[in-house]
């Protein structure tokens, strides 16, 4: 019963994607936590855990390629496989962002510098929530949900702009802290880019369902700054 096997294989791959997503969500939240608690040891752990994310991403890619080669899926199923290849790449990049934040957290661990950790925490929570629901929408192929999540990116962008401004002002007021304050800007940037990549996942969701590749990210980041 080839159809039955194909469906089962697809479900297994989808489960793997969800697990990868969970690893990435965890990494992001952990990285921000390490920054909050100035815990260098924890931060190093998170950096090391990125390896598992990369490995899993390649394992899924492998799985998908084998399925395409052996089962020769068509139409919707083929779009789904293409979308999955794209999504796991996005997830792996998000994992790298988390690793970057953890690195910075380790670097700032012994520094007295004031970090706008509440705002960073808010941004990270929104981004992770978006990711969590976007992956759910992706698996369920819920186009409406995908659209609405893509719009939440605006919230993150607004927060980003506000905090960026504050941090830059801080920099100007305390030039001796420029190096470390710069790192905080990178943290903000990483979270903002994470939310952007979630939007890409939403675009892929629409793609699977409709076959259309739309551009859902309406903001132009470079212009706004």
């Amino acid at each position, binding site marked *: 019963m080839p159809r039955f096997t194909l469906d089962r294989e697809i479900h297994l791959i989808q*489960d793997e994607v969800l697990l990868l997503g*969970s690893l990435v*969500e*965890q990494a992001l*939240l952990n990285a921000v936590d390490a920054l909050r608690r100035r815990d260098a040891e924890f931060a190093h752990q998170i950096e090391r855990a990125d390896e598992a994310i990369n490995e899993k991403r390649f394992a899924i890619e492998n799985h998908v390629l084998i399925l395409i080669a052996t089962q020769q899926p068509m139409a919707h199923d083929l779009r789904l496989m293409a979308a999955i290849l794209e999504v796991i790449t996005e997830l792996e990049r998000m994992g790298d962002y988390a690793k970057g934040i953890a690195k910075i957290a380790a670097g700032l661990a012994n520094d007295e510098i004031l970090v706008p950790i509440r705002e960073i925490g808010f941004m*990270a929570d*929104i981004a*992770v929530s978006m990711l969590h629901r976007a992956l*759910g929408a992706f698996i369920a192929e819920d186009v409406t949900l995908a659209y609405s999540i893509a719009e939440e990116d605006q919230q993150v962008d607004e927060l980003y702009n506000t905090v960026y401004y504050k941090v830059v002002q801080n920099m100007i007021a305390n030039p001796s802290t420029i190096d470390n304050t710069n790192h905080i800007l990178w943290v903000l940037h990483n979270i903002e880019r994470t939310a952007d990549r979630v939007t890409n996942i939403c675009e892929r969701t629409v793609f699977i369902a409709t076959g259309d590749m739309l551009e859902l990210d309406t903001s132009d980041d470079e212009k706004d700054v």
Partner: protein
Amino acid sequence: MKFRIRWRIVLPYVILLCAQAIIFASVLPPILRHAYQEALVNEQSPNLTTFYLVTIILVILAIVTVLLLSLYVSTQTLGPLEKLTRAAKQMGAGQFDEIDIPKPSGEIIEIKELSEALRQTVEQISAQINALTNERSKLAAVLSQMTDGVLIADSGGHVQLLNKAAERLFKTEESQALGRSVVEVMRHHAIVDLWTETREGEPKTITLEMGSDHKFLQVFGIPLSADLPGSTMLLLQDLTQIHRLETIRRDFISNVSHELRTPLASLKALTETLLDGALEDPPAARRFIVRMDTEVDNLTLLVNELLELSRIESGRTTFEFQRILPCKLLSAPCDRMALQADRVGLNLRLNCPQDLPPVFADPDRISQVVINLLHNSIKFTPAGGQIEVSAWLEGSQVVFSVKDTGVGIAEKDLTRIFERFYKADRARFGGGTGLGLSIAKHMVEAHGGKIWTESEEGSGSTFFFTIPVA
């Protein structure tokens, strides 16, 4: 198979046949004989019409009686059998309420026995079903009301059960989740790992923080090999609240230690200096001891406020409520602080209409609250500024306000300033315990009122609190 003759059924037929035989034997021969005798007398061929007629009549009669007897026997056996069959079918369909097992009349014992046996079976099964339904209702009630989440999955990782609490945790519904994989429903790698390990046979527990809501969970993985072979159960306890309280407690202790350390360090430095030789220089020694005295005062203030806070929070403070006019509540603290305000070049004004209804309050406590608010205003308003204390009626509450033209409070601090030890601007705050507003909040709330603030950075702040009318 043994062949037995059921005499109860066969006997009537035997009797009927014998009777028919007797009738045939007794009626037909005389008619035949009579016909032949007549033929002998009349020297003709015998007139057998009567004979044939009677024979046909007798045969028809015989057939009819056999038919009638068959009919009787069938209804005696088949009728009840049909009813019993119908009852059995209803049992199979589960329609236990509609079953009607007729009381068998008639003499056929086998049917009676079958009837009785079937009736008993129906009763037993009915009772069992009722018991099971009761059991199931009880379990369903427990599962849906309990605060811990329960998830059961089969060996293939498909969800078999998800109770209400688990539905809330995973933001889904059981109807959606049934048959789906544990990964799809739980969406968390650590819990899925737990499930995989538990599936192998050993129960296991983990604690973790889940999701962007930062829910703190303790998850128990329990193999159900005895009751549901192949299935595993996950019990999810939401410890978020407890964890939060733990964190607050830990932070509080750390804060208190920190606050105590500063004055103690000063004291230590001063005593060391005195012992190192400052004692020999009386004017210097005196200066140091005065400073030590101040630090001891600070420490005492801190400890007193801590005790006060602790008493209030554990409900051990006594309040002496009385009906009192709002303006009387305000006049004492305002008088007390007016001098201080004047000294730093601030204008303190009391704006209280005399016609306000009395409120139910403890004047000493409210005085404390007002003094605390005034103290803050004085601290944070530069010279030349204004402080206005007002009161007015709103519905069933009297609203009090302390408004200043000071530095204001940043938006992000607005909700946090009532927390213990929270100091919005550490640099400016200087002395002070950071507990004043926390105590004020408890006091006001103990009166059944609310306290809040409105502020704009750079223009000033207004603190409001309400007390219900007496």
